[in-house]
């Protein structure tokens, strides 16, 4: 491949890629989530059995990943709305992406204990 022909987009392209990937992941989880919730129409035991898997340490880690995907998709989605509807949006799209990432990191740190705390206690005792 000749040097310099590969398009390596910057913040704009990578946020677009991440928005797609997180969107697909969230959508697939949503299918599963509606199905597991539907078990409340089967019996309380069936529902509680499945929800018990949501409380295991490994699935807690997946939940943390789900929270990460949803928070990014939500915050970046608001950025996209701003780019499309705010007259100065396109000019500040990069700054808005870094703002999104900043808020995302703060919220992810905040979610550490609530989402993973019980898993850590279960794995390491106490």
């Amino acid at each position, binding site marked *: 491949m000749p040097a310099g022909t590969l398009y390596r987009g910057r913040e704009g392209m990578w946020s677009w890629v991440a928005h797609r990937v997180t969107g697909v992941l969230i959508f697939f989880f949503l299918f599963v989530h509606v*199905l597991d919730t539907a078990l*409340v129409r089967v019996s309380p035991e069936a529902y509680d059995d499945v929800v018990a898997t*949501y409380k295991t340490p490994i699935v807690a880690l997946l939940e943390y990943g789900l929270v990460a995907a949803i928070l990014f998709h939500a915050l970046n989605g608001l950025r996209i709305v701003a780019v499309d509807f705010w007259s100065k949006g396109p000019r500040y799209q990069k700054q808005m992406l870094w703002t999104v990432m900043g808020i995302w990191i703060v919220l992810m740190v905040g979610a550490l204990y609530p*989402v993973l705390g019980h898993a850590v206690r279960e794995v390491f005792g106490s």
Partner: protein
Amino acid sequence: MSLNKEATDATAIGDVEGVTLYDVDHPAPVIEAPRKRTKKTPKATRGNFEMYGWLFMRLSGIVLVVLVLGHLLIQLVLDGGVSKIGFAFVAGRWASPFWQAWDLIMLWLAMLHGANGLRTIINDYAERDNTRFWLKMLLYTATVFTVLLGTLVIFTFDPNIR
């Protein structure tokens, strides 16, 4: 007007020196703008579906930010996080029409938002006509099934099922 005479005598195309066929006395013919709509223009046959889809993604997205982040806060953060979830917890929340409506609107908006997103992705990456068609049929079937199932569950929930 020697310039003009020379041009009309020779060729319809001006030469590289910049000789032009037209001047104030011989204006160029007016060419109608290609997209100008007239009474003879046929009505658009495709409608504005994609524009409404684009608008829907943004409007539903804004609402979903509130509904989904609120949902995550209640289910995963407040009051013991995921540990407290169980049949009794669901029964307690769906006793209130407010939370029933919350979950119903969230279900519909999230499924339509996600389905439209996946439709876009299928259109982008599935290159063969047949593949694209069947992937979208699968998507629409799964979407309709999930939306109806979820709606049914919310409306027919029975806390005294035992």
